[in-house]
Every structure is written in C-alpha cells, then in structure tokens.
C-alpha cells in the first residue's frame, strides 16, 4: 500500500518533469482558433498531393512507430498502406466516439486543439488520397468541431470536405466497424466477418478509421518528422500519449505524458494521491487491474507494465473501496453494453455479471462456472467486447483475491461508501 504523503512530497518536481505539451495546449483559453493554431505549430506543407510527399509521409509514420490511440495500438502506417493498396478512392474517419465512460481524453483534446486534429485528419486524407473526411465526435465537443471546420472552410485550408457526425453513446460504438456502421446505417454496432474497414467501409469505400489523438500526433509528425517524434517515449513505444487520470488523486483530469513516464510521476500530475492506494486499473474498462505497490514505480508503457494501455485510462483505486463490488457493477454495465449480436457475448456476459453480483453481495456464487465462462468467451465475438470484459474481470479476481475470499465467506472489508468507477446515468442505448 502506498501512502498519500509519499507521493505528494515530491509531487511538484515530478509533475513538472512528466508534463508534456505536444498535442495539448495549456488549456484555459478554450478551443484554439485557426490563427493561433497555425502560429503555434506552423503551416502545413503545400506539396501535399505530390506522390513524393505521400510516400515520404507513410514512411515517416512507420519510422516514428506511431500506434493508434483508440485502444488497440495498431500501427498507423500499416493501416495507411492497407487503404492505399485498394483501388477505390478511400474515406478517412476521425473517431472521437469515446464510448468509454471513464475516458475524457478525446473530448479534452478536441476542446483544446480542434485544428490539430483536423490537420491530422486532412493530412491522412491527402496521404491516402481520400475524397472525404468524416469526424465522428462525442456530442459534448460537437460545437467546437463544427466551429473549427467552419473556420477552415472560410480560410480554404483543406482540399477534402469535412463532414461532422455526432457519435452514438453506446460503449461499443467507437469500435472501427461500429463507427462505419453508424455513419452508413445509423446502427452503432460492430460488423462481423471480413472484409476489414480498410477494404470496404463507408459507402463500400476503403476506410481509414483513426482515433482523433492519433491524428493529432500525425499532424505534428508530418511537420517535424519521425526523429522529432521519437525524441520522447521509449524506443519500442515512442512519443507522448494522453492519459485520463481518475480515482483517488487530488485533481483528476487529462494529461499528456511521454510514454514510459513512471506511474508515480503521472499520479503526481494529478496532484498526488488523495487516499492510500489499493490497486490501479490501467487502459480502460477493457483494461487490466494491477496491484499498486508493485506498479507505481514502473514505466507507463505496454512493455513496462506488461499490459495494453488501451485508451490511456488510469484509475487510482483507493484502499477503502471494494474491488469485488466495483467489478460486479462494472460487469453488469458492460453486459448491458453488448450489442447483443453474438451469442457468447449476449448470454455469457449477463451470466458472468450475475455470479459476480452474487459474490459481491456475499451470496453463494458459482465460481468454477465463472472461471470457465471467462476463459471460454475469449475471442468469440464479432468485436473484442467480450475479450476486453473478460480480461478486466480476470485481472480483478486476481488483484482483489483477498477480498474475493472474504466475500465467499460473506464478508466485505471495504469502508468506502462511494463508487470509484464512473458509469453513465440515464439511458445507455
């Protein structure tokens, strides 16, 4: 267990060291206008449709090692090549669906630097010679994006038209094929089977679906090159990334950090701990629970932690909270967010949630069945919803093992009253 004081003593110096401002602005002043944006980052290259520029940009993206920031960490350069290998003219989707209820980073980014994201989207469109950019954005930031698109239209900065679509708020709506399905048919659920979106997406066209944070990094990478991009981060996971830091920290919020920054320094960015720590949830609601005492000194990177970073969520889970109860509550929510298209997910997740709820309430739970279902569900959906939920629950059962044992005997040792993990209230469909 890590005391609150341990961190806050050195919090200030660590926070200064960890603070990175590549894609975020210093906030405060609201969305950065086009003029201020161009002054800060410089104009875009003017030769953007020459084949030399396009080839160079794909190569720079690959050299930089830019990975997608929507959760799956797929190499961006590889996605571009897949789209480029198709014959039809493609479409680019800038994805800020942010269906993860605890994540805020895509919205914060668009509320601070909408033009950097739109730069990235139009650069991506020029690289793959797309005929349209479609921005699928959370309703919270729709006005900022509309305003920024209008500014660009008046200044005539972009070759491609930019269409803005308000995202669906279902958890699975941000998955690439679900975003395409939402744009095309108004159905925010993943599509099964091949073809991939890079082959056939919006209107049957090859579609490059990129998270908006990825696009912001692309906008800078194309201005400054891959060497600049790799100046921070780790050799395997270069660059900076956005993290949403919530839970028992003094100031929850979104921060930009170099990948590989020690977890303790990231917690210091949030003003240090507001309560002793029990565990950390890393990545998101598809992420992994990690014990805090061994994790806090490790570098925040997929290799450093041994788990995926997902969409960059870090939940500081306080000692007084009950990991079993929170896991059951989260499992029920995630079961409700299944698109209901695939049997294993549709029936398996509610069954899993039911046993976890029994455990949380100290009633007899079918633990052997629970373990088997969690193992069997992996990889058996059209999207990775069931896999992500199972991973998160399996790590919870491991990290909160002592509390699981207490619950099996009918006890709960938690003292806290409030839930730590935020879930959407009201209608979730």
């Amino acid at each position, binding site marked *: 267990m890590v005391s609150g004081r341990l961190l806050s003593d050195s919090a200030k110096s660590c926070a200064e060291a960890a603070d990175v401002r590549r894609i975020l602005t210093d906030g405060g002043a609201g969305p950065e206008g086009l003029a201020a944006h161009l002054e800060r980052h410089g104009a875009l290259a003017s030769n953007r449709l020459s084949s030399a520029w396009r080839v160079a940009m794909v190569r720079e993206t690959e050299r930089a090692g830019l990975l997608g920031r929507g959760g799956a960490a797929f190499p961006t350069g590889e996605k571009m090549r897949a789209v480029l290998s198709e014959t039809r003219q493609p479409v680019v989707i800038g994805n800020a669906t942010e269906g993860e209820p605890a994540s805020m980073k895509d919205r914060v980014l668009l509320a601070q630097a909408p033009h950097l994201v739109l730069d990235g989207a139009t650069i991506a469109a020029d690289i793959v010679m797309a005929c349209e950019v479609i921005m699928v954005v959370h309703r919270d930031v729709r006005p900022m994006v509309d305003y920024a698109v209008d500014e660009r239209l008046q200044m005539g900065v972009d070759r491609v038209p930019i269409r803005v679509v308000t995202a669906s708020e279902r958890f699975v709506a941000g998955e690439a094929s679900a975003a395409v399905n939402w744009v095309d048919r108004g159905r925010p659920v993943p599509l099964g089977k091949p073809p991939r979106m890079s082959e056939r997406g919006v209107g049957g066209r090859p579609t490059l679906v990129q998270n908006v944070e990825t696009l912001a990094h692309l906008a800078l990478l194309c201005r400054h090159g891959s060497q600049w991009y790799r100046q921070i981060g780790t050799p395997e996971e270069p660059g900076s990334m956005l993290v949403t830091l919530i839970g028992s920290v003094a100031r929850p919020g979104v921060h930009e950090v170099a990948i590989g920054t020690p977890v303790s320094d990231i917690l210091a960015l949030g003003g240090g701990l507001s309560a002793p720590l029990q565990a950390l949830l890393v990545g998101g609601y598809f992420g992994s629970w990690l014990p805090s005492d061994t994790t806090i000194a490790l570098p925040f990177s997929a290799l450093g932690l041994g788990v995926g970073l997902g969409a960059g969520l870090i939940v500081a889970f306080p000692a007084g909270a009950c990991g079993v109860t929170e896991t059951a509550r989260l499992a029920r929510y995630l079961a409700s967010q299944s698109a209901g*298209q695939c*049997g294993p997910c549709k029936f398996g997740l509610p069954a899993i949630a039911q046993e976890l709820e029994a455990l949380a309430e100290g009633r007899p739970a079918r633990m052997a069945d629970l373990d088997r279902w969690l193992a069997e569900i992996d990889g*058996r959906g059209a999207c990775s919803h069931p896999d992500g939920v199972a991973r998160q629950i399996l790590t919870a059962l491991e990290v909160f093992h002592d509390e699981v044992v207490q619950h099996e005997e009918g006890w709960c040792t938690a003292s806290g009253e409030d839930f730590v993990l935020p879930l959407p209230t009201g209608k979730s469909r």
Partner: protein
Amino acid sequence: MYGLRGGLRTSTPNWEVSMSNPVRLRVDRIACDGRGLCAELLPELVKLDDWGYPIIAECIVPASLEELARDTVDICPKLALWLEKTNAEMTIDR
C-alpha cells in the same frame, strides 16, 4: 449433447495436415444462432458452450477431417461457417 465425450483438441501435433491447402474452421458470430449442428457433426473441432454456441478449435483442420468440415460448413442452417485459407500453422489472428 452428442459427441462431446472425446473432448476438444486445441493443438494437433501428430495429425496429418494437408500442407497444400491448409484451412481453419471459422464462424460468423453474428450470423450464428446456436443451432449446434456443427458440434454434432464435427465434435473433434467444435464443442458448445452453456448456451449452445460453438467453441471452435483454433487449429488447422486436419486432412482427415477436411471433407467432414466441408460438409459441416454446407449444412449449417444459418450459413455461419466457412473454411478460411491460412498460411501459418497456429496463427491466433481472429
């Protein structure tokens, strides 16, 4: 449930694999309705979960089962099964 006593084999080190045209059995999870015919016809590669949905071995279909696998694909009432050509012997790419 029929044919499940043999258990599920997830790896096939000694089975004869047709190297000319290795395939894996795949299922469209959205189309699948859990009718369960696949597990009856091909228990070597398919077992069912508690709700009757198939759990398919990730391995390459052994040559000795290829014909049966093709029949199973044809007979699925939801047309949810297909055989996918594959190069690597045990890729886990879904």
